[in-house]
């Protein structure tokens, strides 16, 4: 593949539509989603369960569950090339090669009956054609990079012999083994303890700097966003409702949903009598309202919000929001 000029983003997703086909009808869990991830940058994709964030991430890799869901529109441009037009075998070279995926639960991501060495060397063989002593050496290097103590011994160990944090490091070593440019991480720290989580995020950051990785970081946890992400895209009911650099998002959230979410996070350093809470629930993906999906829970909503879908408004150099309040 030709090396991309600097002005082309590493990953550009345009108007991605993934539909869900069930007995209840056709749902739109990913509804015209657009975002970019540049090299050396971490974009946080934040949302609550059912917002479509994981399905968006899986759709980028074309790993969305089939036949229950299907990508029906949009473009996924990886270094300028549309992945949605690739053949299945070309896609297999991308996955684990140029782009890698880290999932929430490292125990289910790893095969319990093969050694860690076996699983790392499988990727090295498939994506880099390494075999024998050479693949062994590279595997040791990889385990060393993710700070597994005594990597030579680690190669012969089975996943159950590692703790949760160490297992997630092994998964990361496998993800890095194909020398990816883009890492998609779906809630990689949710199953880890707080202290372990902090160490893992530090490691991920260090590796990102060394390799110039672009990371799409899917999470529901704002503390992880604050520590890890350069920019954030907030998802609600299948749509991105706000994008902003992380500091801007925390300092001055624009979308009422973002604002409400941030207010409802309890604080370790202060005792409060009551937490702010958002009443109601997000609409079903099978029956989206005609207007803004957040309108029925929003304290600012007026008649237009319930009637018409708000457009996307540019409110800063890297800030967009979908809300009628910003339409003059």
């Amino acid at each position, binding site marked *: 593949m030709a090396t991309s000029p600097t002005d082309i983003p590493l990953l550009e997703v345009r108007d991605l539509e993934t539909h869900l086909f069930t007995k209840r009808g056709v749902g739109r869990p990913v509804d015209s989603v657009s975002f970019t991830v540049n090299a050396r940058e971490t974009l946080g994709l934040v949302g609550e369960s059912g917002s479509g964030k994981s399905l968006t991430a899986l759709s980028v890799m074309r790993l969305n569950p089939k036949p229950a869901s299907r990508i029906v529109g949009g473009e996924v441009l990886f270094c300028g090339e549309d992945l949605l037009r690739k053949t299945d075998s070309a896609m297999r070279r991308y996955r684990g090669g140029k782009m890698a995926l880290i999932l929430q639960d490292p125990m289910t991501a790893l095969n319990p009956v093969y050694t860690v060495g076996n699983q790392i060397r499988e990727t090295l063989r498939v994506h880099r054609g390494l075999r024998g002593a050479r693949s062994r050496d590279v595997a040791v290097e990889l385990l060393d990079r993710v700070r597994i103590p005594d990597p030579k011994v680690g190669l012969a160990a089975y996943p159950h012999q590692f703790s949760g944090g160490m297992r997630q490091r092994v998964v990361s070593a496998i993800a890095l083994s194909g020398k990816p440019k883009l890492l998609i991480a779906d809630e990689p720290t949710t199953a880890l303890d707080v202290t372990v989580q902090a160490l893992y995020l530090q490691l991920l950051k260090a590796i990102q700097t060394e390799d110039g990785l672009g990371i799409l970081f899917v999470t529901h946890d704002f503390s992880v966003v604050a520590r890890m992400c350069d920019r954030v895209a907030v998802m609600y009911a299948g749509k991105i409702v706000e994008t902003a650099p992380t500091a801007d998002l925390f300092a001055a959230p624009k979308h009422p949903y973002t604002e409400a979410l*941030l207010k409802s*996070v309890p604080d*370790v*350093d202060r*005792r409060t009598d009551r937490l702010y*809470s958002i009443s109601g629930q997000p609409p079903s993906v099978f029956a989206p309202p005609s207007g803004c999906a957040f309108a029925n829970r929003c304290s600012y909503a007026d008649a237009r919000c319930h009637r018409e879908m708000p457009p996307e408004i540019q409110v800063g150099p890297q800030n967009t929001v979908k809300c009628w309040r910003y339409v003059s």
Partner: protein
Amino acid sequence: MSTGTPPILEAHKISKHFHPHGWLRRHPATRAVEDLSLTLYSNETLALVGESGSGKTTTARMLLRLETPSSGSVRFDGVDLDKASRAQIERYRASVQAVFQDPWSSLNPRMRVRDIIAEPLAINGIIKTEIDTRVRSALASVGLEEAALRGFPHEFSGGQRQRIAIARAIALRPRVIILDEPVSSLDVSVRAQIMNLLKDLQSAYGMSYLLISHDLATVRFLANRVSVMHLGRIVEEGDTDATFEHPSHPYTRTLIAAARMVRPILASGIAAG
């Protein structure tokens, strides 16, 4: 809170050792909980915090008699449960309820919501005519509509299911509820709703909570007192505010520091709202 009132639920030097079976026998026993004592007074919330593997859930299970302590005793209203009469055990069972982490597995998928909430009432001999009223009032207290009674658990969202689990726990008007990570599987917005609800129910019914949690922000919001567990032992205990402001054990400091990392940026956002 602790002044003068007699304790309701006490653990006195309880330990739990798990002995491996079969070919694993040569491995040493896992000492999940070691010589742990705690006391729960009326109308208070005591939090047990620690990371996975610290033994907090094992402790909760021993307090619920789902696990027998290897040594030590659990006392309810001053009575050692190992020496208690059948009537005393029944009274304890009715007075100590639990809400677990995962509302997807703690509710029987084949039962309707009405039957889920009614089951503990029927078991504890509440007369049939009264069960219906009690079920309805429990459901109303957790903020669910009456139409929910006929539904099955899968028809509800995570937050609604946790409300159903709470309704089941309060239906018997217990004196103690053991909350094992009650909000950690819920979304941020729903989490706030459930945390407020737990607080409201406590002031309405005057129950005691034993809160098991790894999330210090949840603990700060709900608990009056906190016990920090590490490797099966309590390493620090005290008033929540005092412990959070001046932690003395290094492990407590590590936990608070890890939870606090996000704060500097978040503070301004919250202050605005």
